[in-house]
């Protein structure tokens, strides 16, 4: 009996060692494949916006205009910040902050306010971008990393994309008559920098990252918070998402 017990425990032990080494090798293999996979993997860049953190200073708007040579006049924006005031009678007053200088013109009494907040807006880099669909010459296109860009050599300036964008994210450059919009600072992010609005945001209201990355502030934000996109009913599938977005935001 004793001998049999000894034998069985011996076999158990060998099994354990063998299986352990098997687990170890498979684990190592998994890690290796994970690393090689992620190194050459497709990227899906986007931005998450924490509305509750935005202080409406407008630094992102001015920095964006500098970085991307957007005309200074208040009719052209790649990104802008909306100021919402929901009053107790459920009426909503909205205003766009022009680089921090704009103020709601209407005199709002503080005790009439139910809630109030800021919402930064930019191109949503939709998965189904209507602007790409309607561009007659294919000047607007989606890159492999999911960013919607405009080919300025091809754009004929017909403005159909402006009509098709549900978010008002596009404008025509007055000097060149070419459609322009947020590129998520493509020239920066491909060199490892943050988009400029993310860079200058003082409260981390804007979070930039790659949705395909295993761990990043962006992915964490998406995991931990209630997220929402703008105008989901239009099935444009925006990649830019918002946390704690108020229902009054359109």
């Amino acid at each position: 009996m004793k001998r049999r017990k000894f034998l069985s425990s011996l076999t158990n032990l060998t099994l354990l060692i063998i299986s352990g080494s098997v687990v170890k090798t498979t684990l190592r293999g998994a890690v290796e494949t994970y690393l090689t996979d992620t190194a050459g993997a497709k990227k899906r860049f986007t931005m998450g916006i924490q509305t509750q953190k935005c202080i409406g200073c407008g630094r992102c708007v001015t920095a964006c205009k500098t970085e991307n040579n957007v005309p200074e006049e208040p009719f052209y924006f790649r990104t802008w910040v909306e100021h919402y005031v929901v009053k107790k009678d459920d009426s909503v007053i909205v205003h766009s902050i022009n680089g921090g200088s704009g103020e709601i013109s209407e005199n709002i009494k503080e005790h009439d306010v139910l809630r109030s907040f800021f919402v930064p807006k930019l191109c949503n880099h939709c998965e189904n971008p209507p602007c790409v669909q309607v561009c007659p010459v294919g000047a607007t296109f989606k890159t492999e990393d999911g960013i919607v860009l405009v080919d300025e050599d091809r754009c004929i300036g017909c403005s159909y994309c402006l009509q098709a964008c549900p978010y008002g994210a596009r404008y025509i450059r007055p000097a060149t008559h070419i459609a322009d919009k947020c590129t998520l600072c493509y020239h920066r992010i491909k060199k490892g920098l943050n988009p400029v609005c993310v860079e200058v945001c003082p409260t981390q209201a804007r979070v930039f990252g790659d949705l395909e990355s295993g761990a990043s502030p962006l992915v964490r934000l998406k995991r931990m918070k209630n997220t929402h996109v703008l105008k989901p009913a239009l099935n444009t599938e925006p990649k830019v998402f918002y946390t704690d977005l108020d229902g009054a935001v359109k």
Partner: protein
Amino acid sequence: MSADFERLAAILKQVTGYIYPNEIEIHWSILIVVYPYITGLVAGAFILASLVKVFNVKEVLPTYRLSLLTALSFLIVAPLPLLFHLGHPWRSFEIFLTPNLSSAMAMFAFVYAWYLMVVLLLEIWFEYRTDMIAWAGALKFPSNLFYRIISLFSSDTSEKATYFDKKAIKAITVIGIPSAFILHGYVGFIFGSVKANPWWSSVLMPIVFLFSAIVSGIALILLLYMVITPSRGEQLDMKCLDRLASLLLYAMIVAFSLEGLDFLHRLYESEESIKILSDMVINRLFISLVVMQILFGMVVPLGILMLVKLARFNDELRKLLYFVSAILIQIGIFSTRWNVVFGGQMFSKSFRGLTAYKLEILGVEGLLTALFLLVLPFLILALLLKVLPPWGKIINQDASVAS
């Protein structure tokens, strides 16, 4: 550019509510109003012409060739407003040669080329072939060379050949009717397929466009017929006029019902956008929509035409009433296009505010350009009437054969 900024700053003062900051400027200007108006006339005139050949509406035969030439002269001008409106007109060839196949606008090239080359030019060519041969024979060198070239040096005037012409015309017209439907229905689709825009986004849009096109086309031919015939010292064919007027009436009834249905549907469904759209109709489009389009462009001419049908007026009064209604209809249809194009751009896609449109007088996208583009087809038509006169002995023969 600084003038642009001043203009936009002035518009900014008229903005009510909240609009996205990029939405202050209205990008599709009066030229984009002219474009569907002109294509509508093309489609309408062609469909009228087809009635003669396909449905054997013999009374309107005197307008057959006129309709074809009108359709052609307007079709030649149709792409010009688009071209003038582009930020980079010299790149427009890309639409034809490297189009994005998912774009409704890119299909313009194919629809246009198909309609121009396969339908309109072909039908005109077959219709005028024997005439062109005759004119080439009657004229001396070098003016006969022109007719020799455009008749593609064809010379066969045998009975067999003319029979083939007739067959070909019939076949082309049969293809032509759906093509005309596609041409203008497609213009409606350019607007109707923009899902972001509740003023435009509607399945009815192509059909509404089509019927308003038929209305405007018939009204235009009626006007042209009434102006050109007396100027040539000939009598107006009252049978033809009456028939044109009743066709116009039927087309208007359909168009009016469709527009009414669209309106009721929107009102009854009362979607998210209804508040801002009604705000816009009342504060921005009241004159152009309620007064110009519905009252003067639709209700009044509809009433006149019905009255004429019921009462027994004499010829002179009928002529006057037809003329007045046809002019009102043209104004009405132009307002329809105006309201579609500007209505879709005056409200913000945030549904919280309205911007304004200030019509420029000068400038590429101004009133003068629009007027020029509206006059240009008539100049081309005048030229075509000189080169390919619709009133030859051929048409009288046709008429006698038909009757």
